[in-house]
């Protein structure tokens, strides 16, 4: 309610929006704004949107000072509490006015000087350009090795060949962002989601990586379980959003196969039974259990189908991106 509309502060038409989520980065904000300005001032009309993700330090004050210095180009959006990087990114996307949106980290480990190269690559006809960090300047054991493993797993499961999913420096076309919504902790899988949900054309370029100058890293090793669950979701949603019944039918068939195995074993054991012995019901019971699972999965698939049909047939749901020839 006390938000000002974009037109109030930005008089000219913005073409490129740079968005930077900030969480406790009071010391870096000033330098960051200067660096972005230096990188962008040669190009077309730009804006920088600083998203303060509920920082506990003076980030908002420092960011507001930067806004006051360059009121035509820099804007601050403060979230009501700390929502996490995904929500902060989505907030930036929603606020951005440019036809092209660039995202980067607020800790200056990304170099804003790489942005023009990103934009040039995007101009070649891509929907998403992702940076990959050459000569990473992070700790080997706790950051680089886990990140290498994670990238291999993500590549393997999603089928999208991206070298560095952890690099925040990316450039997007607006048409792509209109088809993608981030929630939970999905920011790690933007390339996979973009490819899956919208059929985006993705390119990678090498970008610089600086050691952290101020503050501490906000990521560690503790998130593996959550990342794996999210990965499963991305994969599922991507492959089966349009036909969930197919996914559940596969499960139902597997259960049915297990039921058949146990049914056969049960038949054999009953046939082989000699007179006077009690009948063992273990195998037939196991078979019935799997029949039950099979039916259950099938019905669940129908429910999923119902939900998907209901939702996707609504007006306003965007189809995949249309591509012309790459020039």
């Amino acid at each position, binding site marked *: 309610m006390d938000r000002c509309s974009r037109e109030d502060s930005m008089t000219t038409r913005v073409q490129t929006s740079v968005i930077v989520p900030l969480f406790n980065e009071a010391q870096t904000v000033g330098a960051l704004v200067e660096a972005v300005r230096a990188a962008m001032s040669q190009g077309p009309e730009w804006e920088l949107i600083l998203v303060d993700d509920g920082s506990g330090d003076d980030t908002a004050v420092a960011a507001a*000072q930067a806004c006051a210095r360059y009121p035509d180009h820099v804007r601050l959006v403060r979230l009501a509490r700390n929502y996490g990087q995904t929500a902060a990114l989505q907030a930036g996307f929603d606020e951005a006015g440019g036809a092209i949106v660039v995202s980067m980290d607020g800790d200056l480990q990304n170099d804003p000087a790489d942005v023009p190269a990103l934009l040039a690559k995007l101009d070649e006809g891509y929907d998403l350009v992702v940076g990959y960090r050459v000569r990473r300047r992070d700790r080997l054991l706790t950051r680089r090795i886990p990140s290498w493993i994670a990238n291999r797993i993500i590549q393997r499961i999603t089928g999208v060949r991206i070298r560095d999913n952890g690099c925040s420096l990316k450039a997007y076309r607006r048409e792509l962002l209109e088809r993608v919504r981030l929630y939970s902790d999905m920011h790690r899988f933007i390339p996979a989601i973009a490819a899956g949900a919208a059929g985006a054309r993705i390119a990678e370029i090498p970008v610089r990586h600086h050691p952290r100058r101020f503050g501490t890293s906000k990521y560690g090793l503790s998130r593996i379980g959550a990342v794996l669950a999210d990965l499963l979701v991305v994969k599922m*949603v991507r492959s089966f959003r349009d036909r969930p019944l197919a996914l559940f039918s596969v499960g139902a068939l597997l259960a049915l196969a297990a039921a058949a195995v146990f049914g056969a074993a049960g038949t054999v054991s009953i046939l082989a039974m000699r007179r006077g012995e009690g009948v063992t019901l273990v195998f037939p019971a196991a078979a019935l259990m799997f029949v039950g699972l099979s039916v259950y999965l099938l019905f669940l698939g129908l429910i999923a189908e119902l939900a998907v049909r209901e939702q996707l047939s609504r007006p306003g749901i965007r189809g995949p991106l249309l591509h012309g020839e790459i020039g």
Partner: protein
Amino acid sequence: MRHGSESDRALEGETVASSGTGPWVSVIVPVTERPEPLVGLYWEYAAALQTAGYRFEFLFVTDPAYRAMTEPLAALVKAGEPIRVYTVGQSSSDGALLTAAIGECRAPVVVTLPSYRRVTAEGIPQLIRRVSEGADLAVARRWPRQDSLLNRLQTSAFHALLRWLTHSTIEDIACGVRAARREVLAEVPMHGDFYRFLPLVAQRDGYRVEQVDVAQHPAERRTRLYGPGTYLRRLIDVLGLAFLLRFTQKPLRFFGLIGSAACLAGSSVLFVLFVQRLQGRPLADRPLLLLGMLFLVLGVQFIALGLIGEIIVHLHSPGWRPYRIREGGVPAAAA
């Protein structure tokens, strides 16, 4: 602070039914469960607001079952007291009554009051003051407690459970006496019994929620006991709330955790049986096989349910924003 002054300016032109010149307050009283005589309730709380210098209006909302309780208020309305009485069409929860009434409130600050006296009337201005000092929602905590030992035990057991499951920092969630900016009550969902947990939901949505100690009303000294159904309902409410607060955006993390635990248990049982089978022990007379299978089947079912949840969340994601903005757009807004 900013909100209060803005709204006051905006409201100056409107006609105000009550006397007094201070800030303006709407008081909503949902009339359900164990209502006390409402005329006495009105005089008691209205007097305190009057003394504190507030202009105010009272909105009594009720459903058909308790309609008779509000009839004595008609005389007060006729006498020109700032009272409005609403009846909703069907039997409804407190939350539904509040949601219905919030649109009728005209003041920028809204106080919700149960239809029985929980805190002394002097506590209400304290809450309102906290809201005008910048809180989005001020929640009364009855302190010091004057009720019976049994009730105090009930309360602390309930809050221990709540703290454990939701990491709540609110120490008297059931009190129901709250003051808020009107927008907050209009935006935070209150469906079903969740009205009770409004402060926790508001906190999740990034609103500034503050707790204020106010004196407990002497009327609450007598011991209150409820039927077993009430306790069961509260328990289910808390479990549902804990799930919704933590996993609304990621149901698979919840179902997946339980499901993989069940799958793990099932497959370890089956593995042991398999090894023993290799050692020559026949499988057909091992009932343990069924237990292993059962765990496995349950695990798969949980995970499948989690996937359904994820599909639903994903399908709804285009419609909502996963964040709330405090301020933005204006350069130097925070300076």
